[in-house]
C-alpha cells in the first residue's frame, strides 16, 4: 500500500530510498513499537501470545475503537476533529436496537439501519461545520452532548436487549466465517482495506488530503470543499455506525451510556499511528497499528495483573512516548512538524 502524504515529497528527484523512508518511517516505527510491546508481554507471560488471547483478547478488543478510528482518520486528515463518535455510537446502537426489536428486522437490515443512522449523524456534523461555519471542535462537542442525551432518552435509560428472536445478531461479531477468526476482526480488516482504497485511490481521498494541506488553495482550484467535507464527516459516521453494530453484537444489547470517552481512545489511536492533528497527512494502516498498540498494551497489563490505576499511567506514558518519538524522528528527517 503506497499511501500518499501530501507535503514533504520535494525530494522526489533526490534519493528515492530516502523519500521512501521519509514517507514510511512513521508507520515503520509505530510497527516496531508494536512488536517491542508484544514481545515484552510474551516474554513476561507466554500465554499472552496464544491465539486465544490474540484473537479473542487483543484483536476483538480492537474492533470497536479501530472502526471509529478509521472514520476519525479521514476527519483528522482534513484538519478537523470529531468528538462525537463515542456518544454517536451509543445513539446509533440504541436506535438500531429499538428498530430491530420493534420491527423484527433480520440481521442484514439491522446492519443497514446502523450504518445509515451513523452516516446521517456524521452528515449533521459536516453540515454544522460547513453551513453554520462552526469550528469542528465546537460543532462535534455539541453533537457529542446531544447524542449522549438522545441515547438516554430514546432508550428510556435502559439497555436495549437483542433477544434471541433476532437470529444471528451475536454472530456479526462473535461468529466465525473463517475458523477461529472472529467476524468482528474480519469486519475491521475489510473496513481498513476499503478505507485505505478510498483514501488513496479515489477523488474523495485526494480531496481529503488537499483540504487538510491547504483549504484555501483547494477552494481556489475550484473544488467544492464544503461538499467534500460533508462527505468526509458522513464517511466517519458510517464507520461509527459499523462500530455500533459490532458493539451491540459483542454485548448482545445496546448500552445507552456506553461510548463517552471512546472518542479520545479513537483519536489517540489515529495520532499514535502517525496522522497529524494539523491535517494533510495520515494513513489507515498507521491508525490500525495505533489502535493495536493501545489494545495490546491494555490487554498485556491486564494479563500481568497490574493495578488499574497504574495501567492508566502506563497507557498515558506510552501515548506520550509514541507521539514524541514520532516528532523527533520527523524533525531529524527534515520534515516540518506538520
Amino acid at each position: 500500500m503506497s499511501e500518499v502524504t501530501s507535503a514533504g515529497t520535494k525530494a522526489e528527484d533526490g534519493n528515492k530510498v530516502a523519500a521512501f523512508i521519509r514517507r514510511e518511517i512513521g508507520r515503520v516505527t509505530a510497527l516496531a513499537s508494536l512488536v517491542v510491546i508484544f514481545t515484552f508481554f510474551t516474554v513476561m507471560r507466554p500465554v499472552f501470545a496464544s491465539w486465544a488471547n490474540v484473537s479473542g483478547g487483543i484483536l476483538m478488543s480492537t474492533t470497536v475503537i479501530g472502526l471509529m478510528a478509521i472514520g476519525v482518520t479521514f476527519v483528522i486528515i482534513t484538519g478537523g476533529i470529531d468528538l462525537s463518535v463515542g456518544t454517536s455510537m451509543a445513539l446509533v446502537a440504541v436506535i438500531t436496537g429499538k428498530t430491530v426489536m420493534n420491527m423484527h428486522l433480520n440481521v442484514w437490515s439491522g446492519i443497514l439501519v446502523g450504518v445509515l443512522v451513523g452516516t446521517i449523524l456524521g452528515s449533521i456534523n459536516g453540515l454544522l461545520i460547513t453551513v453554520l461555519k462552526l469550528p469542528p471542535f465546537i460543532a462535534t462537542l455539541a453533537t457529542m452532548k446531544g447524542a449522549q442525551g438522545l441515547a438516554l432518552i430514546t432508550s428510556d435509560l435502559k439497555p436495549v436487549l437483542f433477544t434471541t428472536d433476532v437470529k444471528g445478531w451475536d454472530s456479526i461479531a462473535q461468529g466465525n466465517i473463517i475458523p477461529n477468526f472472529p467476524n468482528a476482526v474480519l469486519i475491521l480488516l475489510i473496513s481498513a482495506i476499503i478505507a485505505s482504497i478510498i483514501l488513496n485511490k479515489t477523488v474523495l481521498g485526494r480531496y481529503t488530503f488537499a483540504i487538510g494541506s491547504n483549504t484555501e488553495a483547494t477552494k481556489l482550484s475550484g473544488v467544492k470543499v464544503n461538499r467534500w467535507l460533508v462527505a468526509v464527516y458522513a464517511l466517519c459516521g458510517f464507520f461509527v455506525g459499523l462500530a455500533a453494530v459490532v458493539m451491540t453484537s459483542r454485548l448482545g444489547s445496546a448500552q445507552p451510556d456506553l461510548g463517552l470517552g471512546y472518542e479520545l481512545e479513537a483519536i489517540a489511536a489515529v495520532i499514535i499511528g502517525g496522522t497529524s492533528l494539523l491535517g494533510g497527512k495520515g494513513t489507515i494502516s498507521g491508525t490500525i497499528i495505533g489502535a493495536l498498540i493501545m489494545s495490546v498494551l491494555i490487554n498485556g497489563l491486564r494479563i500481568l495483573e497490574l493495578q488499574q490505576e497504574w495501567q492508566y499511567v502506563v497507557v498515558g506514558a506510552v501515548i506520550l512516548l509514541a507521539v514524541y518519538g514520532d516528532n523527533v524522528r520527523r524533525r531529524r528527517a527534515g520534515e516540518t512538524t506538520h
Partner: protein
Amino acid sequence: MKKGLITVAALSALALVTGTAAPVSAADKTLKIELISKGETHQFWQAVKKGAEEQAAKMNATIHFQGPAAETMIDKQLEMLDAAIALKPDAIGYAALGTTESVSHLKAAHAAGIPVYMFDTAASCDGGVPALGPNSDCALGVAYTNSLAAGSLAADTMAKLLGGKGKVLVVGHSQTNQTGIDRANGFINRMKAKYKGIKLLTPQYAEGGDALKAQDIVAAALVANKDLKGVYGTNEGVSIGAGQAFKAAKLKNGAVKLIGFDSGKQQMANIKSGLQTGAITQNPVGIGAKTVEALVNYVRNKTVPKNLIDTGFYYYDKSNITDPKIVADLYE
C-alpha cells in the same frame, strides 16, 4: 390488581378523613409526604416509589414522588426540593444527588419545620450519619443499602459455590464512587478474612460499568488463568460484560461462576439460561417503605426513627428468581 386495591384503600382512607367534619389532629389526618428521588424513569426508582406508595396506603398518608430525568441533573433536583419545601408538606423524603449542594436546602426545610428523612443516598450533613436525628438541622436519618454487607454476602455465596477454594476475579464498576468501592471491598475483605482457600486476582475496574471494557477484562483473565473459578461483577453493566466474555470464550454454563449485582432484562435472562450463576439485588421497595414508615411514625407518634436503616438485600439465582419476595425488587 394489587395496585387497584391499594388505590381503593387509599381513596377510602381519604374519604374517611375528609368525611369527618370536626378538625382533625395529626393522629388521624392523612399525611402529605413529598418524595424527591434521584430519578424517576429508571426501574430502580419505580420500585422505590411502589414501596413508598404501598406503605403510605397502609398508614393513611399520600405521597408525591418525583425526580429529575437524569442522575446528573443536580440543579433540577434541588429546584424540586425547594418547590417541595414551599408546599409545606407534613414530611419530605430525599435521595441526595448533590450530596454537598443539598445540605443548605435541607437546612431550609428544617427551618420551615418540615421533617426530612433521606433514602438511598445521604447528603453530607454536618457530622455525617451519626449526627442525624431530631437534633440535626439537616435530616432525621437515612434508609439505604449497606453495600459493604451486600458485597460480603456475594463473597459468602461465591465461597459456598466454589467449596471454599479457587481463583476469583473481582470486576468493579468504579474506583471513585462510594457504592462501587463498598460493593467491591465488602467482597474482598470478607474473602480475605474468612476464606483462605480462595485466591483473589488483582481487582480490575470497568469504570462507569462499561460492559465492553468488562468483557475485555474478563476475556483476558480467562486466557491468563485457565483455573479461574469465579467472577464477581459489582453492577449490571459489568455483569453483562462478564457474561458475554463467557459466551465468546464458549465456556460451558457454570464452569466459571458469575455473581452479579442488581437486575435488568439481560442479566435476568442470563441467570435463567445458566450463563450467569446469580446476583445480589437491593431492596428498593424496602427503601421506599421504610422511608415513609419512619416519617409517618415521627410526625404522627413522635417516634424517633433510627438514624440509619439498612433496608437489606438478597442473593437470587435461577431457583428463586420467580419468588414473589424477590420479584418485587427486580426490574427489567
